[in-house]
């Protein structure tokens, strides 16, 4: 039975491999053509960011929606488990100092990566996750209860809703404008900070979404416990 499973899996993966082998991938010949197009139409220096924030923006929109519904599912089902208290503040002084020194550095690094997603590698997804890791460091140092209270004071959840609303309205406006998501003069000078059409707005809104979502998931997992 075990060997049968291995053989069947091998055949399946082999079929996939054969598919890749016999398929001629068309864009292999002139991928550099993207560069000229992106410079003229979008203005971002980062071609990957230009693709997923402009040409394939619906892809990113539904990715964010999947993320949002996953968070909804997590927060619904995790409320069935017994609460097991918060993460306590760290007892060790060395650990406390190290984490509390790291947390702002990591968070600011995340914000930098988020804001310059259209100029250099990075963008909303990695920036939001790095920022949430910084907040996780903070929570390990001062305890998750204080961190959550500070988040509550900053109205982060309403900020998240605002980010989703901004993203949706940006895309809706673009949908009425024949798929051109923003006016042409937003293209800016390639290489400068204000360039890349709506890249800054989109990076900020998706980044906030990923940041708040990641923190919410980690906080819920640390508060409700069930042995697995």
């Amino acid at each position, binding site marked *: 039975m075990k060997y049968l499973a291995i053989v069947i899996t091998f055949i399946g993966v082999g079929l996939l491999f054969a598919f890749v082998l016999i398929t001629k991938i068309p864009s292999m010949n002139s991928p550099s053509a993207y560069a000229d197009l992106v410079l003229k139409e979008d203005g971002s220096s*980062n071609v*990957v*960011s230009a693709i997923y924030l402009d040409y394939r923006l619906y892809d990113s929109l539904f990715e964010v929606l999947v993320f949002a519904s996953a968070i909804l599912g997590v927060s619904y089902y995790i409320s069935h488990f017994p609460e*097991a208290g918060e993460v306590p503040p760290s007892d060790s002084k060395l650990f406390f100092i190290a984490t509390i020194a790291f947390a702002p550095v990591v968070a600011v690094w995340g914000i930098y*990566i988020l804001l310059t997603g259209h100029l250099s*590698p*990075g*963008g909303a*997804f*990695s920036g939001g*996750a*790095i920022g*949430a*890791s910084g907040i*996780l460091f903070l929570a390990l140092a001062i305890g998750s209860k204080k961190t959550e209270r500070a988040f509550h004071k900053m109205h982060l959840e309403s900020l998240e809703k605002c980010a989703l609303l901004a993203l949706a309205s940006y895309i809706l406006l673009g949908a009425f404008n024949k798929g051109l998501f923003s006016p042409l003069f937003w293209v800016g000078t390639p290489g400068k900070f204000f360039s890349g059409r709506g890249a800054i707005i989109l990076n900020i809104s998706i980044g906030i979404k990923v940041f708040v979502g*990641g923190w919410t*998931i*980690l906080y819920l*997992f*640390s508060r409700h*416990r*069930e*042995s*697995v």
Partner: protein
Amino acid sequence: MAFKTIIGLILLLMGIATISARKAITAVIFFAVTSTFAAILFALYRAPDVALAEVAIGAAFTSFLYLIALQHKGKLWVALVEVKGGLNVLEKWILEGFCERYHLELKLVPFPDISRAKEKLNSGEVEMIAGGIVSTPSIIHTVPFLETKVLLLTRSDKNIKTEDLGLSYFNTPSNEGTDVIAIDLMRYRNFLLSNLGVKVEVIKQINGLGYVFEVRADDKTLLKQLNDFILEAENTGRLKEGIGRFVY
């Protein structure tokens, strides 16, 4: 080219190590290492965006999530059938030692009679039953930790209920037509203590039995661990000390 091949082979090795790790926590660490090497390989393939996302989400964030989810102790759910006297205390003491050894959290669910506890055991709500279970061949049980015997009595007193005793294996109808019921030593002693003056007639004694824990049929690992623990406690003399402290 060669560098990519080396990193790729390391990636493959780490992937195999992840899926073949015995404990989940080891696999999580291997998974984080795999993610990191994958990020290096993505960077070598000139995909810095993917590498950054992989190292931020795949390596750091996912590992945090797994570690938070796995940090809790496993639980051992035990149905405890109430027996008066020191037997329950001894069983609790043994189980606490076992849970300390295997880093488990002991969850005792008290039950007044055995039939309810067996129902829960079959449906999987508890993993084992403790509390005066006698080592009959009809159940799957551990090695005995305390010797006992089973007495067959005539049912002269209506106060003894057979379903409370849970020893239907020994409950054979006699020739004379009267009901014969079986009772283990601990319960018999408790019965005598609580019903002074009641006369019961002992027909037969069945020796060579012991008190055990009953486990589920599909739980081979738990059975082996429990057996090893009880035998070790017997060999080191700790079990004898506990019996002397709690039962007699």
